[in-house]
């Protein structure tokens, strides 16, 4: 039986009391989770623009349609007037944050409560399409016609800004930018703000919307995207499979409401899970590639376990970074090294097989998946894992979800620049 002692002792405990999500599998945490567990894919041909000129033509895009069908009708969430002042990544963040805040039931009334409630929602890239459009305006010699909302529409920390304005949260207002590790860093850092007493409640996560010509072309040039499955989009994201050929970009946002444990208990909030461990590292090696052996990932995971006061044997599920690139096997090797004999009983999957890679939002939606895995004792599947390129004793939950006892889960996110972050969550 796990205790909250160990490395936890003496510090303020942080629990999750609200969750929100929008992404390629749709709108709403429960809707996305049930589709994920059912083995559905959110990947399709790009429809946001005509991708015919680009080598990569598939992505995970948010399905549009009635809210009641688990799809996005943006005007239900952001007024038409305000939509024009924000890039799509801010729309995504606002949708997920609204669901999370409302799910938590937290409505600060007093000035003191408002000042103890903060926001830390990041993005890997920010308003790329907005920057693209504005560049064209300037290039055409129409600089004086540039919208006064161009800069606040593109700035990464404006998701946090808009959420604070919407709800009157006057506590720490911060934002993380660590490429594909953004979501985990945001949740981990925000939890620490609560532990240190800077806030009692933090709305934290990541948002991304780069399924646009510049985003796809940029990652294509970096040879990072899958290009071989344009005719069969649902097969394109295939972590650990020998036929994988790059990641599939996804868009959306994941946001959680983090709350100091006694604060949550006192108001009778429902508690999904506790953030018990957080570890970070840098590769100091290469701008886009991890080093052989992925010791950076190893150190981030080891540090997260240490701060949680748990051992590998306690971990029932790992949500891998697993982007469907060559680096998948390096992460696998690092997990095997850390877990030793305990790897034999471990389940590890990559939900990017179904959602694509949401870059700065990935770590946030995957942390939510870890908490739901604990709640429901289910490991979500890795789709398209037909022939692993590397054998392993670790069960990678190929094709179909598995019922398993999961008390503690670990989520990994690694970003360009050689930045690594791991989060440990536990049922309460």
């Amino acid at each position, binding site marked *: 039986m796990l205790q909250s002692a160990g490395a936890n002792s003496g510090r303020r405990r942080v629990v999750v009391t609200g969750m929100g999500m929008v992404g390629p599998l749709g709108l709403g945490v429960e809707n996305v989770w049930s589709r994920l567990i059912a083995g559905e894919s959110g990947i399709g041909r790009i429809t946001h623009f005509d991708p015919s000129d680009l080598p990569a033509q598939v992505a995970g895009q948010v399905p549009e349609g009635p809210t009641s069908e688990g799809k996005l009708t943006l005007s239900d969430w952001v*007024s*038409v*007037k*305000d939509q024009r*002042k924000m890039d799509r990544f801010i729309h995504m963040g606002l949708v997920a944050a609204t669901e999370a805040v409302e799910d938590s039931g937290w409505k600060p009334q007093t000035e003191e409560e408002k000042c103890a409630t903060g926001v830390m929602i990041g993005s890997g890239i920010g308003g790329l399409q907005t920057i693209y459009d504005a560049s064209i305006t300037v290039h055409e010699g129409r600089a004086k*016609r540039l*919208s*006064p*909302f161009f800069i*606040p529409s593109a700035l990464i920390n404006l998701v946090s800004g808009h959420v604070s304005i919407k709800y009157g949260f006057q506590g720490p207002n911060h934002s993380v930018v660590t490429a594909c590790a953004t979501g985990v860093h945001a949740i981990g850092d925000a939890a620490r703000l609560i532990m240190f007493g800077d806030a009692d409640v933090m709305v934290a996560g990541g948002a991304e919307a780069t399924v646009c010509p510049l985003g796809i072309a940029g990652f294509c040039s970096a040879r990072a995207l899958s290009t071989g499955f344009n005719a069969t989009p649902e097969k394109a994201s295939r972590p650990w499979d020998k036929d994988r050929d790059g990641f599939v970009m996804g868009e959306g946002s994941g946001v959680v409401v983090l709350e100091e444990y006694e604060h949550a208990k006192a108001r009778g909030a429902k508690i999904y899970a506790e953030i018990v461990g957080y570890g970070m590292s840098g590769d100091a090696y290469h701008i886009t590639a991890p080093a052989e052996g992925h010791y950076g990932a190893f150190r981030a995971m080891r540090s997260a376990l240490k701060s949680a006061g748990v051992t590998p044997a306690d971990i029932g599920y790992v949500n891998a970074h697993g982007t469907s690139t060559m680096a998948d096997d390096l992460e696998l090797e690092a997990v095997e090294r850390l877990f030793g004999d305990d790897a034999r009983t471990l389940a590890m999957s990559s939900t990017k097989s179904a959602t694509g890679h949401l870059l700065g939002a990935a770590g946030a939606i995957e942390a939510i998946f870890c908490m739901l895995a604990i709640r429901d004792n289910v490991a979500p599947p890795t789709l398209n894992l037909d022939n692993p390129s590397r054998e392993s004793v670790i069960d990678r939950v190929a094709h179909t979800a598995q019922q398993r006892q999961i008390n503690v889960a670990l989520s990994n996110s690694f970003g360009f620049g050689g930045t690594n972050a791991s989060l440990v969550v536990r049922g309460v």
Partner: protein
Amino acid sequence: MSEIADKVKKIVVEHLGVEESKVTPEASFIDDLGADSLDTVELVMAFEEAFNVEIPEDAAEKIATVKDAIDYIEKQKAA
């Protein structure tokens, strides 16, 4: 109502997301129609674009109501 007044009204409705009935000549962009300072900058740009006129900053600062905008544009167009 003149063609210019009609067009101004339409632009205000579209940019500020307000109901057409609220866009009276006396309505102040900031006090009555919920605009902030950035909204008014954007509105003036939209007027410039739609009517193909230049509205210098010192003139723009004096445009506070729907009528101010209509009057200014009509004067420019008549000149």
